[in-house]
C-alpha cells in the first residue's frame, strides 16, 4: 500500500505551488487548516488564485502577507470576534487586491459542481443583486489573468423552460485543496466527524489534495468502520499528522476556538504594523507546527478541549454551563 504520509514542510513544499488556484476547507472559525496556512506563509509561497469559500482568519493571513493575487470572496470574517476580516478589508479599501464577489451559496455550489465534474453550473441565484450587476474583476482584466474564468457568469435561457432567465456559472478548476480532518490513515483515507462543510467536494475537485489530521491511524483501523469515512485514499496526495492543526479554529469533538488568539488577532490586524508583529510571534517566530504548539503551551491547549456531551469547552465559557 502506498504511504502518503509527509511532514507538513514537505507536503507544502511539494504540493503547494506559486500561482495555484487554492482552496481551504472548513468554515470561518471552524476546522480551518491553520497549521498548513502558517507553513505556506513560512515557505514564502504566493500569487494564489483564492477560491476562498466561507473564509476567516486563514485567508486574512494570506491576504495580509500579500500572497493572494486574486481573491474570490463570498464572506470573510471571524464572526463575533472580527466581524469583517481586517487585512481583507484594508486591501480592498486600498485597491491592492483583485477581488470578485459571489454568494456563499454560489461558492459552495461551484465547488460542488467541480466535484461532480459538471461543465457549468445553472442557478436561480444572484438575480437582481449587485452580484450580477457588478463585476469585481472586469471582463477585460479577466482575459489577461491566468486561471480566472473569462466571464463572472452569463445569463442563459432555461432550455427546459424557455423564457426563464437563469444564471450560468463557470466551474472552478482547483489546483490545490487543503483540509483538516479528524482521522486519516497512511494510504490517504480520511474521516471527518461532524459537518463536512464542503471539504469532501474540494478534496475531490482539486488536482492536489493535502489532508492534515488530528490523529493518524492505521489503514486497518480506518477500515473497521467505513461508515465513518469521508474521502478515499486515492483522492489524497499527502497526509500530514498535525494535532491541533486547526488551532485557533474549532475541531468538532476535539477542541473549541481559542478566543484569546482571536481577540489578540482582532487588535493586531487593525494595523499593518500590528499584523506583522503578530505574524512574527505566531508564524515566523517558530519553525514548525510542533514549535507553535510548544509556544502555546499545554495548559492553553487543554483548556480548549471539548467537554464531552457539551460539544464545546466548558472551561472557555465558565458560568454558562448549568
Amino acid at each position: 500500500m502506498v504511504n502518503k504520509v509527509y511532514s507538513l514542510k514537505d507536503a507544502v513544499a511539494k504540493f503547494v505551488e506559486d500561482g495555484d488556484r487554492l482552496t481551504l476547507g472548513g468554515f470561518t472559525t471552524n476546522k480551518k487548516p491553520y497549521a498548513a496556512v502558517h507553513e505556506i506563509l513560512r515557505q514564502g509561497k504566493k500569487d494564489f488564485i483564492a477560491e476562498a469559500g466561507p473564509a476567516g482568519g486563514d485567508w486574512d493571513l494570506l491576504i495580509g502577507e500579500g500572497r493572494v493575487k486574486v481573491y474570490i470572496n463570498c464572506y470573510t470574517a471571524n464572526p463575533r470576534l472580527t466581524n469583517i476580516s481586517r487585512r481583507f478589508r484594508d486591501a480592498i479599501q486600498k485597491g491592492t487586491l483583485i477581488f470578485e464577489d459571489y454568494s456563499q451559496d454560489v461558492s459552495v455550489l461551484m465547488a460542488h459542481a467541480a466535484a461532480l465534474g459538471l461543465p457549468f453550473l445553472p442557478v436561480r441565484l444572484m438575480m437582481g443583486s449587485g452580484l450580477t450587476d457588478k463585476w469585481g474583476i472586469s471582463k477585460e482584466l479577466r482575459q489577461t489573468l491566468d486561471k480566472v474564468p473569462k466571464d463572472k457568469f452569463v445569463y442563459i435561457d432555461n432550455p427546459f423552460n424557455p423564457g426563464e432567465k437563469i444564471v450560468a456559472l463557470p466551474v472552478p478548476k482547483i489546483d490545490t485543496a487543503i483540509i483538516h480532518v479528524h482521522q486519516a490513515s497512511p494510504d490517504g483515507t480520511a474521516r471527518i466527524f461532524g459537518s463536512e462543510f464542503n471539504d469532501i467536494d474540494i478534496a475531490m475537485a482539486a488536482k492536489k489534495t493535502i489532508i492534515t489530521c488530528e490523529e493518524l491511524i492505521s489503514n486497518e483501523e480506518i477500515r473497521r468502520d467505513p461508515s465513518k469515512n469521508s474521502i478515499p485514499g486515492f483522492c489524497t496526495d499527502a497526509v500530514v499528522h498535525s494535532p491541533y492543526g486547526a488551532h485557533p479554529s474549532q475541531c468538532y469533538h476535539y477542541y473549541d476556538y481559542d478566543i484569546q488568539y482571536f481577540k489578540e488577532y482582532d487588535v493586531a490586524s487593525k494595523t499593518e504594523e500590528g499584523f506583522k508583529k503578530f505574524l512574527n510571534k505566531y508564524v515566523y517566530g517558530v519553525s514548525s507546527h510542533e514549535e507553535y504548539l510548544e509556544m502555546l503551551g499545554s495548559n492553553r491547549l487543554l483548556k480548549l478541549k471539548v467537554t464531552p456531551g457539551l460539544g464545546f469547552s466548558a472551561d472557555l465559557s465558565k458560568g454558562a454551563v448549568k
Partner: protein
Amino acid sequence: MTDYSNYTNEEIQVDTIAKLIKDDQIVIVGTGLPILGASLAKKVYSPNCRLIVESGLMDCDPIEVPRSVGDLRFMQHCAVQWPNVRFIGFEINEWIHGNGRVIAFIGGAQVDQYGNVNSTSLGDYHLPYFRLSGSGGANGIATFCNTIIIMRHERRKFIEKVDYITSPGWMDGSGGREKNALPGDRGPMMVISDLGVMKFDEKTKRMYLAGYYPKSSPEMVIENTAFEIDVSKAVEIKAPSPEIIRIIREEIDPNQVFAKRH
C-alpha cells in the same frame, strides 16, 4: 433580589423577534439577536419551531450562544449535520414545493425603502470607503425565503438607495422582483430595529412604521430614517415582562455574548 423590570433596546428586540416566530415555522437564524430571539421563542412562545443555519446544521437547539453559524455550539446540538449545499437545496425546494413554513433573518449595513439590503461594501464597489464581509448565505436566503431584516436604526443606514444590493428585497416596488427574475411570492416581511418594527405596504411595497417601543417614538423613527416613512399606522409595542428579561439574561445569554446590559 435581582430586578428585571428594566430592559435594554436589544432585549426588547429579542422579545419582538421571539413573538413573531410561529410554532410551525422553520427559522433560518444567523448569529446575534436572531439566535437569542429564536431561542426565546423555543423556550417560551413557540416550542415547536425549528432552527436551521446556512452552514447546513438542521433543527438546532443550542445550549450556549453560538458566535458563528458553523460553531460547535450549533453542531453538537442539532438533528442533522448537512453540508452547505444541501441547506441551499432545502431552501430552494421549500419554494419549489410552495411551502410557506420558512422564515429567515438577515442583517446588513444599509437598507432602502423597499427592503433591499447591503452587506457588501459602502461607497464605490471597486474602491469602497468601507468594505464589509460579503453576502455569505444572505443572497440566496433573500432570493427564496421570506425575510426579517435586523438593523440598527440610523439615518445613514436607512437610506433612499443602497450602495450595493447584496440581498434583494422588493427591488423598486410592486412587481420589482418578477421583473428581476426573482420569486415574486417571497420577499422581506419586515425590518426590526432598535426603534421599532417596519413593514412593507401590500400594494406599493414601501416601508412603513408598524410599531414602536415604549422607549422610542414615531418621531425618532422619522428623524433616523433618510427616506420618507409613513408612521400613521404605528402602534406601541408592549414592553417585555420581567420574567422574559430574566430568561434572556439568566438562561439564554448569561455570558452576554450578544445582548449587552450596560
